[in-house]
């Protein structure tokens, strides 16, 4: 089983990111589960969501405490939240940022990949400058960096899941898949 934890802020689309990711794996024939951390969600507050992927029926119905991989929609969370809590060594961390990752511990212990998802989202007119909607881009970057799921499946999931601007979201995912930078 693969367990993935998504960190973001309320309003960025973290919960939907976890669902699109699950749906993408479903398109590749996997059993999946996706759910939010059950808090009271507020715009701007740190939020989490979870995705489980397995070759067999998933029976665990509880939150994920030892994820295999992380998806981080806001780089500031790296400094404010203990995002790597429970993360298995050697796991992937996909971070939305336009700058260098200076935290050498992250780079040494885990596989780190970065993507400027804000830029891609704005290029495709997803969200506003203040709150770009980066969830489809970051999932594209996850596919590109980890190779665990194909970009084709991610695009299929976006088509089925996203109610508006399907084409723009699919293109954003594709761009992010191609532009993701593997740091370690």
């Amino acid at each position: 089983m693969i367990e993935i934890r998504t960190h973001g802020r309320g309003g960025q689309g973290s919960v939907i990111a976890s669902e699109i990711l699950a749906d993408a794996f479903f398109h590749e024939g996997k059993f999946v589960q996706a759910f939010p951390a059950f808090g009271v969600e507020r715009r701007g507050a740190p939020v989490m969501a979870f995705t489980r992927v397995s070759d067999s029926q998933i029976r665990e119905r509880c939150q994920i405490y030892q994820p295999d991989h992380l998806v981080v929609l806001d780089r500031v969370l790296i400094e404010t939240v203990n995002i790597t809590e429970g993360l298995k060594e050697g796991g992937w961390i996909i971070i939305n940022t336009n700058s260098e990752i200076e935290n050498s511990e992250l780079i040494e212990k885990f596989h780190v990949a970065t993507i400027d998802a804000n830029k891609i989202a704005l290029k495709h007119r997803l969200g506003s400058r203040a709150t770009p909607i980066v969830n489809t881009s970051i999932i594209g970057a996850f596919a590109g960096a980890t190779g665990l799921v194909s970009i084709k499946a991610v695009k299929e999931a976006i088509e089925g899941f996203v109610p508006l601007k399907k084409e723009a979201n699919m293109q954003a995912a594709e761009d992010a898949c191609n532009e993701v930078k593997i740091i370690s």
Partner: protein
Amino acid sequence: MKKVIMGNHAVSYGVRASEAKVISAYPITPQTHVVELLSEMCANGEIDAKFIKVESEHSAMAACVGASAAGVRTFTATSSQGLLLMHEMLHWAVGARLPIVLANINRAVGPPWSIWTDQNDSLSQRDVGWLQLYVESNQETQDTIPQAFKIAEELQMPVMVVMDAFFLSHTYEIVDLIEAEKVREFLPPYQPEIKMDVNDPHSFGNLAGPDMYMELRYMIQEAMEKGIDVIKRVDKEFEKVFGRGYGVVEAYRCDDAETILVTSGTVASTTRAVIDEMRDEGISIGALKIRVFRPFPFEDVFEILSKAKKVAVIDRNISFGGHGIFYQEIKSALYGRTGIPILGYIAGLGGRDITPSVIREIADKALSDKNPERYINWIGVKR
């Protein structure tokens, strides 16, 4: 068609496929998506039903009572304080023998305010006379809705389908969607023997004196006692059409198990993973899921548990001053027929996570407990 959907929407799709004609509900977290999608389906003609907006849950159930009495298939959904506000009307639905189906998303009762899961909301309605079915997956949630209508209409009794907040309601997973066309093979149109009809006037809800009231209560109990067989048969009929069945209880690796953990809802699912892990270590343990809580399947429970040497019940609920509520029922089922120790564990109240390690802790305690006469063992509580 298989699709990744949330538990709340699994309810909505189940209602769509059952072709309910009147839906009346008031939104409340974590139930809101259920009626949000149903109201959209009503508005865009996907379902030929009337959606009645109301100002409270009491009115929602009152509207369902009226619609059901007029002879149509009727549905509502709620949670926690909403279910409690319906309480008076829940009694009405039973007394009037109306086959309403209600989905309750288990949410802890306030104060203190909580939106997270536990079973005290639905279990506090134990004695009103509604049948109660507890489900563990989105697939079972969807499939149980048409089953509930069939059971309700045959017994002329209302049925509550109960699911955990968030661990099901907000969790996306794969569901094989059922469609009305195929459900019709299983669930015929609702044709009540008696209904309110302006062209054929009768009076309903009159005063029943001491010479009558008790017989009407007897008939409700009679319907409940018939219920177990009806639920089993309906489940078999569903399985014939759709290839999926759930039973009234589900035993997992119980055949030769010395210790059996009794669970319900999503905990039943997580428990199976723990049972496999413990079996791999050579520990003789199994799990029993209670799907039907009212009527309680006393005989089925006895048959499975009486072969064990020890029973441990996990309750995500408590009857204050009493014990865990499933625990009390399990004791009743075994009373006077076996001397097996039965241990009660309270866990996960107010949505506290019941992880595999919490279940393992309970199992380990149950296995090593030398003094198993304690009725309540609190798990993970800070004292």
